[in-house]
């Protein structure tokens, strides 16, 4: 397992359908844990941006390395939709999806 990418794993308990848990092996049972990716070297993160604060919505392993996972750091881009602003990133270093390193 030492060669697997480690990502932060978190899934907000509300307003979430489905899970990205199947993309790796989740270590520990706390609310926010680590996941060892089973099919890629890519972490992702999604945050809700509101009143200048970011609240994590989902973090985990992304299933593909070919979807624009070019940066080692989590540089987000915003999506304005359904009356909310979401920030999302893909990144390819261990635990790079813990925090946003550059806000888009």
């Amino acid at each position, binding site marked *: 397992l030492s060669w697997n990418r480690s990502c932060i794993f978190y899934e907000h308990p509300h*307003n979430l*359908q489905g899970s990205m848990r199947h993309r790796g092996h989740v270590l520990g049972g706390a609310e926010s844990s680590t996941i060892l990716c089973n099919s890629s070297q890519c972490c992702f993160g999604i945050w809700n941006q509101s009143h200048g604060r970011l609240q994590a*919505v989902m973090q985990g392993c*992304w*299933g593909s390395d070919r*979807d*624009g996972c070019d940066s080692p750091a989590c540089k987000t881009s915003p999506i304005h939709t*359904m009356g909310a602003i*979401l920030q999302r990133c*893909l990144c390819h270093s261990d635990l790079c999806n813990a925090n946003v390193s550059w806000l888009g």
Partner: protein
Amino acid sequence: QACCRLQELTVDLHYEKFIVVPTRYIANNCEGPCRFPLSTRIPDYSSHTVLLMGMQERGAPLRRSPCCVPVKYSDKEIIRITTEGIQVTMFPNMVAEECGCR
């Protein structure tokens, strides 16, 4: 020029208002002319295509010539936003995997 075949094409999803992750992916495209002999060039074609191309070769005009298109797709997992919230879902027919003349 080469015949109908799969080519890599990246699609930017920043413009898709309901797809949260990813923001781009490799969707591929089918490109190139459909020409005889199909059998040695393109694995996927139909009797219908062969007969249309036969008509063209004899000079009979077709209002729609055989075209190089995806004949097999694969799905892709995406995270999207719906009125219910955030959803992890397999989207069907997202990636062109094989091409044929139709």
